[in-house]
């Protein structure tokens, strides 16, 4: 009873340990996943910010270079001794041919344009012509569509003063898609959109042929806001406010039409109120991270499955091992019958728990030593195995059969109601165990002596029952061996 309770308790313990182990694994995975996700988001934001910062630096430098070149040429051509506007225009044209400029000209202090009529009409249309004489510094206009090229351009306006007096303004048109070559991100160009964003109107214009828009396409961040899904409330407002306040730059992530993006933005120093924004898909930004995350999840799942499988296998092996061990510790290795210790335990258990009667029988192989001496130990073992087999066959698992030691066997008959049945069984055994075929010796005669005692009639505990059965056996041997006798008859 206590053994059984112990085994049950151990199984429960295994179960608890398994559940705790799997729970800890799951918790670790969840925490790890959350950490990785957080890392991915931080990484994305950092990368986007870094990229937009680098790109803005490129843009700023490029614009700076373009503007500086226009200024230098302007000062050189216009600021020199030459005052003839036509000559000035021709010289500017010559310069433009060797640069990225798509249109160039000169507007004198009378607002006469020395350049294409199209440029003049555009500058007038967008209000720049009326302002140029009031501006003392170089300015870069907002993007607009040129009627000559039908593409989006920005115009550099360089005011020229001679002897302190306004002389005129050089204008030079920079195509917006020129930005493309300064902001190309070879590794990510299929996953990136570059925008200029105006911090007041939140208008966006695409600078590149990106994921969602062709170069020169207008959009508005306020309009897109309704489609964007932010993780943190107030995230969008925070960044819009930062842009309106002229902050240098930052980055934020969102989901748009089911795709995750990160947008990094940086102020463009040469374009007042404008920011450069780089919008990248998170998958592209942290493609390796997502791959890593997917692999991690896959490995984790596989690991958990393997662990579970290993656990199950180990459990099965352990159970099998225990059973085998129990079996080994309970049985006689040669015959496979119970050993003495197990026999005693089982009989005592029966006597303690059962209310029915029983019979304890000792069976002794007659002259066993001679078999070993005459026929060898191998054949001697064969005799013992035959006894074991026949006893097992006769009495089965319903009763307890054991090898008590050496050439002595014992049987405990459970639920005995009629000793006649035992006597008949013993007679059958005498028949079965009358001879044996031995290797090299052929058929050889067998005999046994057996003595039995009844429970509770002869004794009420194992020790006394044993003594009675032993006494019965002794009497049988003394009377000539080769038969079965009861204790009562002693």
């Amino acid at each position: 009873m206590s053994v059984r309770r112990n085994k049950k308790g151990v199984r429960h313990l295994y179960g608890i340990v398994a559940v705790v182990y799997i729970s800890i694994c799951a918790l670790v995975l969840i925490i790890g996943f959350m950490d990785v996700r957080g890392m991915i988001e931080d990484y994305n934001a950092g990368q986007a910010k870094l990229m937009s910062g680098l790109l803005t630096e490129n843009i700023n430098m490029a614009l700076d270079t373009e503007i500086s070149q226009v200024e230098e040429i302007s000062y050189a051509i216009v600021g020199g001794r030459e005052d003839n506007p036509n000559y000035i225009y021709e010289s500017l044209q010559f310069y433009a041919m060797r640069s990225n400029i798509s249109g160039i000209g000169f507007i004198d202090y009378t607002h006469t344009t020395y350049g294409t009529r199209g440029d003049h009409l555009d500058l007038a249309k967008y209000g720049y012509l009326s302002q140029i004489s009031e501006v003392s510094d170089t300015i870069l206009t907002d993007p607009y569509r040129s009627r000559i090229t039908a593409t989006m351009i920005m115009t550099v306006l360089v005011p020229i003063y001679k002897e302190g007096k306004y002389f005129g303004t050089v204008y030079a048109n920079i195509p917006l898609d020129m930005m493309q070559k300064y902001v190309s991100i070879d590794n990510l160009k299929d996953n990136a959109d570059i925008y200029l964003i105006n911090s007041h109107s939140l208008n966006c214009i695409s600078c590149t042929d990106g994921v969602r828009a062709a170069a020169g396409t207008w959009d508005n961040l306020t309009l897109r806001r309704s489609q964007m899904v932010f993780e943190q409330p107030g995230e969008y407002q925070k960044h819009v406010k930062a842009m309106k306040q002229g902050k240098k730059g930052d980055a934020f992530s969102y989901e748009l039409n089911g795709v995750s993006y990160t947008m990094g933005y940086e102020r463009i120093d040469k374009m007042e109120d404008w920011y450069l924004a780089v919008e990248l898909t998170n998958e592209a930004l942290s493609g390796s991270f997502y791959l890593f995350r997917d692999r991690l999840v896959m490995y984790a799942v596989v690991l958990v499955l393997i662990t579970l499988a290993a656990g199950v296998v180990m459990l099965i092996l352990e159970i099998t091992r225990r059973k085998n061990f129990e079996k080994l510790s309970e049985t006689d290795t040669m015959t496979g019958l119970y050993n003495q210790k197990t026999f005693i335990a089982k009989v005592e258990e029966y006597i303690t728990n059962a209310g029915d009667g029983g019979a304890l029988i000792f069976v002794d192989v007659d002259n066993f030593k001679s078999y070993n001496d005459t026929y060898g130990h191998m054949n001697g073992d064969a005799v013992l195995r035959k006894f074991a087999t026949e006893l097992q066959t006769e009495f089965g698992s319903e009763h307890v059969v054991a090898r008590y030691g050496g050439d002595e066997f014992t049987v405990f008959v459970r639920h005995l109601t009629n000793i006649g049945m035992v006597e008949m069984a013993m007679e059958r055994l005498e028949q079965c165990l009358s001879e044996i075929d031995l290797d090299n010796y052929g058929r050889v005669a067998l005999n046994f002596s057996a003595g039995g005692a009844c429970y509770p009639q002869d004794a009420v505990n194992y020790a006394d029952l044993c003594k009675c059965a032993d006494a019965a056996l002794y009497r049988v041997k003394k009377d000539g061996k080769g038969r079965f006798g009861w204790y009562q008859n002693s």
Partner: protein
Amino acid sequence: MKKLGASLVVILLFFSLLAGVRTGSVQPEHRKLRTYQMFSERQDNGRPNIYLITKGYASNYWTRLRSGAVNAAQEEDCNIYLGGTQSEEHPELLAYLMTEALKAGADAIIVSPTNVPEVVDAAQKVQDAGVPLIFVDTILNEHVFDVCYETDNMQAGRLAARELISLLHKQGRSETERLSVGVGIGMMESQTILERLAGFQEYWSANAPETWSVLEDIKCNQGDADIAQAQSYDFMKENRDLAGLVALNNGSSIGTARAVKNMGRTDLAVVGFDYSDEMQALIRDESYHVSSIVQRQYDMGYESVKAAKQLLSGYTVPYKYIDTGVQQINADNIDSPYIQNVVGH
């Protein structure tokens, strides 16, 4: 009897298929039900053949545009063939019609494009074939056309903002007063709409008083006037300080005008686009403060045919992008001969 019935069904099916070919209701390449208008038979009379393909043909807007093109074709002694799709919703049909025009031997093609890859590819094919290609109403940011006639929608948006600010001032709105204005748009992906919105936002952010704000909830109605009307009701219900509404396309304007009229909101300043009956009625009603920005679509059609003839004659056009301009119409000028001419009456 069964055989007779089956025969009748077969005959009916056969004739319905035949009927479908001419109107383009069912075509082998376009098995889903989409309606478009195919060109009439080409005439070989020695005159240049100009094909005009529009992304709409039933509305007053497109009728005016086509009318301009037809008149110019008559003046320039050209054949003109009209085709188009029922709406902007199936741009692949535009590409199909462009290809068909090319196959039919068009000397020049005029099209109101949509910014989708199919149309860009079709435009490229037209260019590669050496056929002059002219855009009307919409520009593509691709180098696949010879000239474009359209409204500068950024400017139109700026004008809409200017008009709205002007109307609010006329209503006596103070520059320190907190008020909001709602914006309704049609198709969210339409570059026309986006440019108008960009122009509106740009002008408003630079010129409107700080306390006058544009509601962040910009309502998109996909070009459906009924949805626009419902959304206008929402604007009115959700915003107590609503002082103005701007509708950036014809469908939005129709819906907004209906809503304002039904609710009797004479306190609202309204700026819309185009010249629908609803907008016209509201402008004429002196109790409302309304202005409409109308395009010059007649000029688009007219000038595009003129340009086509010029290109076919070996001349170049001076500019690649021509803004045909807009005109604001309000209670002050609606009955002037000039305005009536602009709107085609």
